[in-house]
């Protein structure tokens, strides 16, 4: 005979209890207080400080820091904190288009949190950085994006001694780290090897010298100048060995040529794999035969036809046409511009960093995708 469950001595009591579940719950729902429901919650408010989203910010100061390099300081409209080494996008209208670019933050995390200010330090190099250099002035309004990227120290993964290798404007995340170590928002030891062409190209030298102490050391390596107090040449295995502690993780930020050179040096030292991390660089134009293509863009229920060029990313084509589309890392990795391919042929630069299912179901990252034919895509609305 099948098993008959019984908990109460009198079995019908079990049935009675079952019947009472609904009235019991009805009462519980009816008897709860009528106090207004919360508009927000503590965790959700902290989340807003960690991920404030796109905000407007007033440029309050512009300062020359080295040849062709300026620091732009913004007054934030939203409270924010980030990890030293992260970047934000800085955006502004240029002509008919809204343009934004990712720049490593050079000011410290607590300056953002407690003073409501954030700085980026940018070298005049490309379209938007050139525009900034010539045009940006205090009082102008900009957009600042969410703190992003993974170029920061991780106490679980990394060794507590970090060797930082900076080339040119790649110094900015390390300036932030040095400041963060000094103020206590980051806790690790940084030995910074800072390479530049000449002394005049070094940014933040006075401050870095002042911050140098127990947890932070800095060495300058000039490639085109031989001066006392500076190393001369490139950041070689020999230089790294001379200044690095016994065991360490390496973080690199600079141009691709520097990464290629450093990889060989680090290989000689037997340092690689999880102990070496590089910040990604924005993808620019590709060197192919110029071809004109038509790009059809769906944003919600609107359709736009824009001109695309085989040399330019789809993102650049859309921005040029004045479309408001999402963009963040411009290196194919963050996925913020995640869009659906409807039709067309394309190439991906910088290694395919899409999710597996994105490739399967036809999604692309326009910031690293170049057209090889006319294309049709569906893109989420930009902020």
């Amino acid at each position: 005979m099948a098993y008959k469950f019984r908990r109460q001595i009198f079995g019908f009591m079990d049935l009675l209890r079952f019947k009472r579940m609904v009235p019991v719950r009805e009462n519980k729902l009816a008897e709860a207080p009528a106090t207004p429901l919360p508009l927000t919650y503590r965790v959700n408010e902290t989340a807003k400080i960690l991920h404030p989203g796109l905000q407007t910010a007033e440029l309050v100061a512009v300062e020359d820091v080295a040849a062709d390099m300026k620091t732009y300081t913004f007054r934030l409209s939203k409270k924010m904190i980030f990890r030293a080494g992260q970047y934000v996008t800085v955006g502004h209208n240029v002509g008919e288009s809204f343009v934004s670019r990712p720049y490593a933050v050079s000011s410290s995390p607590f300056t953002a949190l407690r003073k409501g200010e954030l700085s980026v330090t940018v070298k005049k190099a490309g379209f938007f950085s050139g525009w900034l250099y010539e045009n940006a002035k205090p009082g102008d309004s900009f957009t600042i994006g969410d703190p992003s990227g993974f170029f920061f120290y991780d106490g679980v993964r990394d060794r507590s001694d970090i060797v930082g290798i900076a080339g040119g404007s790649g110094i900015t995340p390390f300036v932030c780290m040095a400041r963060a170590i000094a103020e206590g928002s980051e806790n690790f030891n940084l030995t910074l090897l800072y390479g530049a062409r000449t002394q005049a190209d070094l940014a933040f030298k006075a401050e870095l010298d002042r911050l140098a102490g127990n947890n932070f050391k800095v060495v300058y390596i000039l490639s085109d100048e031989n001066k006392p107090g500076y190393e001369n040449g490139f950041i070689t295995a020999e230089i790294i060995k001379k200044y690095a502690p016994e065991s360490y993780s390496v973080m690199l930020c600079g141009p691709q040529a520097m990464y290629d050179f450093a990889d060989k040096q680090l290989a000689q030292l037997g340092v690689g794999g999880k102990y070496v991390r590089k910040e990604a660089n924005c993808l620019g134009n590709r060197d192919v035969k110029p071809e004109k293509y038509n790009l059809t863009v769906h944003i919600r229920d609107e359709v736009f036809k824009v001109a695309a060029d085989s040399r330019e990313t789809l993102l650049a084509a859309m921005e040029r046409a004045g479309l408001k589309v999402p963009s963040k890392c411009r290196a194919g990795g963050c996925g913020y511009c995640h869009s659906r391919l409807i039709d067309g042929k394309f190439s991906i630069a910088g290694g395919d960093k899409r999710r597996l299912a994105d490739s399967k179901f036809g999604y692309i990252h326009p910031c690293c995708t170049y057209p090889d034919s006319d294309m049709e895509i569906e893109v989420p609305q930009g902020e």
Partner: protein
Amino acid sequence: MDRYDAVVIGAGNGGLVAAIRLLQGGAKVLLVEKHNLPGGFATSFRRGRFEFEASLHELNDFGPEGNGGDVRDLFDSLGVTDKIEWVPIPDAYRVIIRRENLDALMPFGKQAFIDKMERYVPGSRQSVERFFELGEQIRAAQAYTNSRNGAVDSSVMVREYGNYVRTGSYSVNEVLASLRMPQRARDIINAYWCYLGAHCDDLSFTHYVSMVIRYITRGAMMPKMRSHEISLAMCERIRELGGDIWFNTEAAKILTGNDGGVEGVVLKGGRQIKTRHVIANCSPHVVYGKMMDGVPEKIVRATNARKFAGRGFSMFLGLNKSADELGIENHNYFLYDTSDSVKQYELMKNIDTNRVQATVCLNRADPGCSPDGTAIMYFTTLYMSDCWGDVRPEDYARTKEKVANIMIDRFERDTGSKIRDSIEEISVATPMTYAHYCGHPEGGIYGYESQYWDGLNPRLQMMAHDYMTRGLRFAGGYSMRLSGYSSAYFSGDITGRQTVGDMKKEG
């Protein structure tokens, strides 16, 4: 252009299924999602050479072809099963409670499970067999309830599904005690409790047993390309059926008319969409708390009565050695301090005392999920209070790191495998992360807790009562099926079909 039969707010598991059901019912549907990706928690992300699963440990009740469970049947009727490649999970679970000298690896398959239990706990066989017998009867009763959309004939219930009715009001602990299951066997069989997020004095037995027998009798599956594959498959299906999906589109307000019912949705930025039907794949706290004006007192009270379930914390590791090299033997682990779930639940209220983890090594289900010579692991716990609300922004990174270390230490100590020096990538999601991406209050990932009075049974019986605003229904972890992947899918199925019914009634 700005008029839809129905707007689904949120492309989480519940919202995606609801949208497909609405479309299959002939409705013109707009699905809006504030994030740029579908799935809610059902997504993945890349770090270096790894692609991490964001949340799914194993999909319950899917089953292999030929022994398909209810989720497979649902996916079949949605038309998405074949869009997804599936991988089976090898074993049910390994539960380790070192302090109590408990280390049990439980297999899938009813007979194998009962036999293994008898080996670990001699004398447990009859009670475990009865557990499964009750489970099958409860499953049949649930199928009957579903076929009647909750409006059951009570005489049929008592006659045909007597054990369902007799066990229906009791907690897991109450029923297992009545089955005279030996304590050690109860400790092992209760291991899944953290998947439902309420301790076994609160947790409804019928809810728990129906989950356990579905796992054990049908096995569990994973989509090969992480849960992102399921989410994108559902999006593709929605588009095939003519639905619109707008990402980066937050619903700011739900507009109501003179009858208090739904008239439209206002998107962030001000654009208005006219509709008489909304399925909200988010919490009633958020909908009634900030998306609607003039909410009746009865609804405010009913919403205030609910208790937030666990707030999520997950650590994702990309390891530069293989699972074999690291000595990680199993796919999923439950590591507890105590088998007393009530005591354990108390310890989970505090960041410093919570050491529970449900841990997965994905390579044990799919060896090719990461490059040769590497492994992917993820570790999840729940906080049973708003303790992360005390963490200041300036202490946030440090607190994350502290919990990450707690998790690594426990895993190494309990399993003997050494992983710390092999961490190539790490990512940590906290209640703040979940609050950011999904907007849930306090960073909850489990909806409303399955309290003694607010369990699956009364919720299912009270679907009509809980439908309090004309045109507004809820899907996802906060709704009638409670939390978890399969539950969220079913909630979307139920609520989507109910809304199609609402539309037909309106004519």
